[in-house]
């Protein structure tokens, strides 16, 4: 077994981020889209912690705490909005909302 | 201190603001007339202060450009833009070229306001307020001695004119107003870029400083683009041939007063800009003329404009449109004289600006008077008006002849001089002169064609339904309308028999336009005033 090095953590972070990004762009279900942005934030968090450990300072961990808080705030907002929207149209398809164009 | 020049701008601006606040339309009318007459008096006062016999040859060459401005005003406080070292100042001044154009403007404005008394029937307060604002901005262009101020006033004329055409114009007024605005603005954006570039590079917007900088410190390619940028804005305004298409529409759709001011003054802003900015800053280098090819190209555009305008005017059914196209043709002469870049041509060009303002302005006034009576301008519906309206017919024929260039009236001298300029110019030559002369013949044809149809022949007028609530106008011109036309007619005759004062007074300024600023003022075809006078007498 080789020891886990920085790049392994970064790899996991990057994979999470990219999965999130691709999912965000391709899926049309509102909840899945928001989950994907959460996934991106988690990738960032892993990145930050790994770098914090690598640089031997606490800035990365402190940053992570805030990133998690921000992600949570965004998610709660988003889910509240999804409930509101679902009540109006009874669907979770993002393409159902296209009143505004031009 | 020369307060006259400050008053010249302050009177109409204050007048516009007060006029917009007046309680009713009747007072607004008379107020506008009063203000415009007061402005005219200020203009006359300014002319009285002016030293017409100024001799610049005693002034050191480097200082000459600044000294040529006699009545000047620069306020004591400065307001630098503070982007590094850019200096913008509210400085005003006139030399003899500006002064003649100022005099023409202040003459045209009261008559066009007086002519609108019955023509404009709705939203009168607004109309007269816009007219006064327009007067201030136009005068601002002529008296600005600061490049940025020049540009600001140049642009500002658009807004009142846009509303004048758009609100009080004919049936297609919206389209005409929009097209007018878009065309002129598109051109002048490039002018703005060049203005800022020159201000940035020269470290000042003062006209004399910028001119000197442009002539001595620009590289050739930079100078070329400076000329192109400046000429872009001015050519649209003049208008020269390919960008003239806004003009016939705007002239036709505008109310009478709007057409008069548009043809009489706004077009001159373009020609004046070419004379004041584009030529000295873009064409003249330390060794004199830099781009003979560009000048030739410009002259060719003018010739095309002359011929094309005349041919298109010939086939018009609408007499107002006919006169509008004749403006395209006439302004071609004006710019042709300008780019001839010799004494005859440029003197003629300045005189042409004044003359065209007077005679075409008067044509539009007369056509407006016909339209007010018969509500048509169709050449097929009007005929033989001489029988019904002898006084009107007299003025119509009179101004037509002035416009054609009958010897003894004003048009003749300037047309003759511009063509002579083209003939004798170093870089143009006989071909250009001949082509322009063809334009004169065509001009006589289409104008006389119109007179023959409209004034003479069997009487034919459309039946007119009387409008409710308005007193019908008298059959022939009434006292007010005669008052409108008489001053113009007097000016036409005066400039026809006595053009020498104008020509002599602008001789030095036009030489300074076409020569590098530090060169001694000697024309290649130097001539004494007596010689000039001899040449011009028919």
């Amino acid at each position: 077994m080789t020891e886990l090095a920085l790049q392994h953590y970064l790899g996991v972070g990057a994979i999470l981020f990219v999965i999130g990004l691709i999912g965000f762009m391709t899926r049309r279900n509102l909840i899945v889209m928001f989950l994907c942005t959460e996934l991106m934030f988690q990738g960032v968090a892993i990145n930050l912690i790994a770098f914090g450990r690598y640089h031997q300072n606490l800035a990365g961990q402190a940053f992570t705490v805030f990133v998690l808080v921000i992600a949570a705030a965004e998610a709660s907002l988003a889910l509240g909005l999804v409930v509101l929207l679902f009540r109006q149209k009874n669907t979770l398809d993002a393409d159902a909302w296209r009143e505004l164009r031009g | 201190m020369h307060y006259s020049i400050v008053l010249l701008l302050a009177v109409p601006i204050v007048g516009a603001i007060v006029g917009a606040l007046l309680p009713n339309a009747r007072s607004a009318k008379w107020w506008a007339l009063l203000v415009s007459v007061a402005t005219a008096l200020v203009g006359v006062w300014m002319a009285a202060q002016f030293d017409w016999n100024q001799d610049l040859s005693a002034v050191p060459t480097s200082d000459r450009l600044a000294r040529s401005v006699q009545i000047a005003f620069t306020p004591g406080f400065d307001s630098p833009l503070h982007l590094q070292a850019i200096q913008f100042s509210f400085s005003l001044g006139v030399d003899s070229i500006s002064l003649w154009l100022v005099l023409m403007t202040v003459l045209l404005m009261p008559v066009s306001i007086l002519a609108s008394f019955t023509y404009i029937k709705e939203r009168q307060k607004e109309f007269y307020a816009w007219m006064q604002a327009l007067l201030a901005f136009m005068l601002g262009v002529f008296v600005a001695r600061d490049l940025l101020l020049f540009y600001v006033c140049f642009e500002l004329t658009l807004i009142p004119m846009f509303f004048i055409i758009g609100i009080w114009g004919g049936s297609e007024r919206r389209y005409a107003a929009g097209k007018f605005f878009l065309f002129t603005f598109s051109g002048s954006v490039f002018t703005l870029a060049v203005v800022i570039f020159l201000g940035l590079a020269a470290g000042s917007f003062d006209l004399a400083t910028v001119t000197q900088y442009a002539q001595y410190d620009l590289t050739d390619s930079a100078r070329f683009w400076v000329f192109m940028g400046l000429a872009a804005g001015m050519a649209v305004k003049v208008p020269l041939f390919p960008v003239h298409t806004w003009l016939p529409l705007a002239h036709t759709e505008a109310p009478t007063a709007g057409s008069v001011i548009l043809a009489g003054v706004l077009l001159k802003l373009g020609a004046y800009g070419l004379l004041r900015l584009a030529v000295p800053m873009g064409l003249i280098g330390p060794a004199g003329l830099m781009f003979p090819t560009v000048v030739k190209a410009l002259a060719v555009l003018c010739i095309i404009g002359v011929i094309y305008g005349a041919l298109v005017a010939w086939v018009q059914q609408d007499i107002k449109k006919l006169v509008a196209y004749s403006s395209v043709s006439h302004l071609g002469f004006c710019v042709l004289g300008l780019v001839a870049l010799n004494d005859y041509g440029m003197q003629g060009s300045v005189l042409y600006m004044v003359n065209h303002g007077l005679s075409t302005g008067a044509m539009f006034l007369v056509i407006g008077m016909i339209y007010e009576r018969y509500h048509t301008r169709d050449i097929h519906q009007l005929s033989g008006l001489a029988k019904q309206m002898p006084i009107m017919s007299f003025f119509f024929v009179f101004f037509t002849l002035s416009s054609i260039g009958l010897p003894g009236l004003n048009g003749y001298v300037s047309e003759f001089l511009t063509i002579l300029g083209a003939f004798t110019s170093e870089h143009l030559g006989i071909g250009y002169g001949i082509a322009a002369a063809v334009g004169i013949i065509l001009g006589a044809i289409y104008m006389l064609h119109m007179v023959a149809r409209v004034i003479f022949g069997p009487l034919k007028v459309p039946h007119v339904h009387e409008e409710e609530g308005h007193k019908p106008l008298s059959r022939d011109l009434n006292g007010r309308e005669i008052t409108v036309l008489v001053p113009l007619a007097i000016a036409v005759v005066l400039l026809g028999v006595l053009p020498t004062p104008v020509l002599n007074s602008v001789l030095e300024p036009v030489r300074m336009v076409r020569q590098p600023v530090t060169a001694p003022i000697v024309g290649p075809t130097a001539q004494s005033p007596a010689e000039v006078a001899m040449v011009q007498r028919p």
Partner: protein
Amino acid sequence: MNTLPVAIGLPYVPDWGQLRAFAPELWLIAAIVAVLLTPFFVKKPNAACGWVALVGLLAALVSVFVVGVDGTGEHFRGLMVADPVSVFWKGLLLMFVIGIVLMWFSTTAPTMHQGDGPEFFTLLLGATLGMSLMASTSNLLMLVIAVELASLPSYVLAGFRKTHLAGAEASLKYILFGAATSSIMVYGLSMLYGLYGTLQIDGPGGLAQQIATSGGSALLWMAIFSLIVGLGFKISAVPFHFWCPDVFEGASIEVSAFLSVASKGAGLVLLMRVMMSFASAQAYESTPLLNHLAVLLGVLGAITATVGNTAAFVQRNIKRLLAYSSIAHAGYMLCIVSLLVRGPAVKADLDLASTAAQVVLFYLAVYLFMNLGAFTVAGLIERETGTERIADYAGMGRRSPLMAFCLSACLFSLVGLPPFAGFVAKVNVFWALMQNGSWWWWLVGVIGVNTVLSLYYYVRVIKVMYLDDSSSAPIWPHPLGAGVAVVCAAILVFMLIAFGPINRLAGHYSHFYGVDQTTFTAEFSSSQPPP
């Protein structure tokens, strides 16, 4: 196995001087608390909350004037900085939000559901707080917090009209784009942290200096791109602008107005601060990094302006039209930021960069009043007639001469025509862009063409108002809103006449802390201009 060093000590307590520098923010926080408490004392809290918020904003504005640039320096262990730029921006922002609250009174207030007021003003003040913090951050962590603090309330504000389907859709689009771009931005920032081991942007050992000494790498570019994505979203730079027109149309009008200036302005000021740190750290060594960055921003700005102006051509709705116009104006300002980045490479000192900052600040000051005036008139007309369609503005010159005049003034100013301050702003833009020299003239050309394009759609609105006839009844706008519109129009004229002093003021305040220090201290010790 290494152990992490753990700092043990007394909790950090900021001293009075540090707090004083952030008095405006503290006032905003106090106002938020007061707004939340208001419903306990007042039965119908909407209007009361409005007044409380107004008082809080006024107090914050006064504190901006009182504190001024005294608090200049690095505060809270480098998390935040206070400097002339941030003071200038906070002054503008607070003035603007006061205008927005007044606008709310005259447009949305009567129709807002009783009891929603406290939430609305909490969110509005919270977003304002975030936007004023955005101007004061020099630390990546604080940057993210400030951006999110500005964004999260904005998402809710956009969909605040709960029964309004379009509002919900606007909010949805806004939050989708926002969440994605902010996660991309944070990912990039984590890369910056990983590369250099610090979150501090400026100062010794900060990111900017380390980048200057160690040069660029692929990862660095990725990080910079992602930062531009995040801020580009706030600025609504193309291609991150899609939210803008939808949100402006869906949100109620005072929210649209708020986002049009405050969100974009805060993003630009933050972008300028970051770029200024980069540029100053690399001053005197013309590096390819700065040139590439300048090209990137210049191209982005040019595309943004062009897309904004061309898309505005076909708009029928006044709010959408103003949205695209705001995109275009953001593009102009982005172009200037490119000069800010390139400045040191052109002239080997920070003069040009300062000029660029000055131009952007002046532009923002003018833009604020143009947009506030235009949106206020649109809101008043919407309230009286219930329409946002431009075609329904027909005959407005007769139906409400004052409103038509104010809107025309703002629109002419947006084109950049004299006699309005927009002209000076445009002249400044041209002026600044020409300093770039060489082949950067293309940018001048692009802005010139864009100005002509923009003329068309702005004048179309004026044409409809004055030249089209309509038999609709005259309308009498709410006096408060009419007052706001008239003041805006008057200020636009005034700023043209008094552009010298105001421009100078922007010049005085165009200095960043930690950058260009010598000029900054010299200028402020010699003459302290009134804020």
